[in-house]
């Protein structure tokens, strides 16, 4: 089966502006879109640049816009998107080359919410225990693989790169609602900033884009309530 790929190419050293290039490759309905990209790179045009690593939807390297929606190239099969596939880099971050974007703006926001465990209490004899219910509270947001599909699908992020963005909110949620963590107050202050949770307009693009099916907008909604009430419950 012939599959037509339309890829947005851009090499900042050569091209003035991004342009589309067409490739025709042989593909099976059960092929990943990533397999097709590999075919192009290995057999047709070695200059095509994209990130990939595990190819199993765990590393979060190959998020890109496939037929206009942010997806992981390794989780989308040809039968899901049809025989004409348009592939573009993620929106809202500077393109390094072709489908590779500079993730620094994304990780800058990620770092701003303190995405690490904070607890200065003296460690107990054995472990910091947590009940099943307490663990369940933030289970959904532990699944994040930092692929940036959510943040770059958010109209608020497109409007302003200063917006902290869904992925960082997910990380904040993961630690704020962890019963062992002690830095919730500091994180809530960050979230309450001008470009914090109040810029979320419940558009649900992030929830629809997330390859791990995290209910991101719901997590942000819980954060909003936590900031509004000044406490977590």
């Amino acid at each position: 089966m012939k599959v037509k790929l339309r890829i947005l190419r851009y090499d900042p050293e050569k091209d003035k502006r991004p342009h589309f290039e067409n490739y025709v490759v042989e593909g099976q309905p059960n092929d990943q879109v990533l397999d097709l990209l590999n075919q192009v790179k290995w057999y047709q045009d070695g200059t095509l640049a994209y990130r990939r690593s595990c190819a199993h939807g765990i590393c979060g390297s190959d998020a890109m816009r496939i037929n206009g929606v942010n997806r992981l190239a390794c989780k989308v099969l040809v039968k899901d998107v049809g025989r004409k596939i348009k592939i573009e880099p993620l929106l809202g971050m500077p393109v390094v080359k072709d489908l590779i974007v500079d993730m620094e703006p994304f990780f800058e926001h990620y770092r701003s919410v303190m995405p690490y465990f904070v607890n200065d209490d003296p460690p107990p004899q054995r472990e910091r225990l947590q009940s099943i219910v307490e663990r369940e509270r933030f289970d959904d947001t532990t699944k994040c693989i930092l692929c940036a599909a959510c943040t770059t699908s958010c109209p608020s992020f497109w409007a302003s790169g200063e917006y902290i963005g869904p992925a960082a909110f997910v990380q904040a949620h993961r630690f704020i609602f962890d019963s062992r963590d002690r830095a919730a107050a500091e994180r809530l202050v960050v979230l309450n900033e001008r470009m914090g949770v109040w810029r979320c307009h419940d558009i649900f693009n992030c929830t629809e884009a997330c390859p791990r099916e995290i209910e991101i907008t719901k997590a942000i909604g819980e954060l909003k309530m936590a900031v509004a009430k000044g406490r977590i419950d």
Partner: protein
Amino acid sequence: MRTSRPIRSSGFIEYVLWLFTRFSGLLLLLFAAISMGVAFSLGGRTLLDLPTMTRWVFFPNPNHVVNSDIPDVSVGWSNAFWQIFSVLMIFLAAGHGINGVRMVLEDYISRPLLVAMLRVLLFMLWLACMIFAVYVILYS
């Protein structure tokens, strides 16, 4: 549970406006429902068409609904309750609308100085709306 400090950072005003947008929206719906109910109870059950209804729902002031087919609209409307009702309604509606415009502008205008100027302009607009509204409601 664990946070005790009240949360106040640079976004406090954003939070207040976020809350205001939501509650003013809900209250405006309530006000619209009240106005509609009053329009019906004043005898509009069979006389109201959609445009007249819209007039009532938006702004139940004798000035505004005087053309509708309901008899004697101005009777019993110049009392404190309806004046406060109308002023409150304008306050919520103008605040809701102008804050919405501010949100949209701040999303699509990236020059800080321009944004600051527009904010001042919008605030003046809101103030003008309120002064006009109070004048119209109390003195006409």
